[in-house]
């Protein structure tokens, strides 16, 4: 559907802007909840992984191009700034992965109670941090 028409554009429904709306789950109307926050962060982490992905694509293209190009890309990716991006992206990856698994569990009809879902969210948040630390130490 097209964007919401300006008031007065449609003769038949001039009251359309004055109707009460259900408030969006994130914002001034609700306290932060584990359910809504873990949901939006799944989306944010997924989208933010584009940054590290494009950096890794650049690294592969540079490696295929030759030693000089590789030195530039490799120098950036192993600099403190590149390391910072990779560190947060590793966390984002594990977060997105663990909360993606929750979607797969939900789709099987399990763990649909709010308290179970919240407990998973808390455990997965801790798990994503631990996995990130593990990867940083091992690699």
């Amino acid at each position, binding site marked *: 559907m097209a964007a919401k028409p300006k008031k007065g554009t449609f003769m038949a429904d001039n009251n359309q802007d004055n109707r009460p709306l259900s408030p969006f789950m994130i914002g001034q109307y609700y306290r932060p909840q584990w359910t809504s926050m873990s949901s939006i962060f799944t989306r944010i982490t*997924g989208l933010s992984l584009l940054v590290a992905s494009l950096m890794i694509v650049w690294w592969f293209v540079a490696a295929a191009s030759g030693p000089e190009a590789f030195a530039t890309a490799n120098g950036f990716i192993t600099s403190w700034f590149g390391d910072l991006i990779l560190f947060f992206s590793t966390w984002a990856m594990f977060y997105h992965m663990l909360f993606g698994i929750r979607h797969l569990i939900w789709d099987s009809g399990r763990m649909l109670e709010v308290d179970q879902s919240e407990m998973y969210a808390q455990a997965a948040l801790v798990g994503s941090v631990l996995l990130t630390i593990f990867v940083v130490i091992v690699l």
Partner: protein
Amino acid sequence: MGFITDRKRAAGLGSAKTGTEHHWHMMVTSVALLPLVLMFILSFGAILGSPYSEVIAYYQRPFPAMIAILTMLVGFNHFAHGARSTIEDYTGGLTRKGLIIGVNCLSYSAAAFAIFAIVRIAL
């Protein structure tokens, strides 16, 4: 000036009708990415920081190269579909169409660049 109400414009259209397909696609690619991404983090993390000649030798081996190719292929496909859901949730009209086309161009270009590069290193 239009004379029909929002409800009348929407009535009878039904759903988009391809939602199930999209959802199933996300499920399939997400399950595929579970082992792929773990293997990619371990293999890419192991070689990152090594000198040029070692990196080239590493990606001439079949297993690291195939893990990287599959991760790029499935990963960017998953990204394009996931980003599309986000775009559809928050935008409409021409903005929505433009963003979805843009995300697809970016995702598949990035995947093509990466895969071509890896194949070129490997062969």
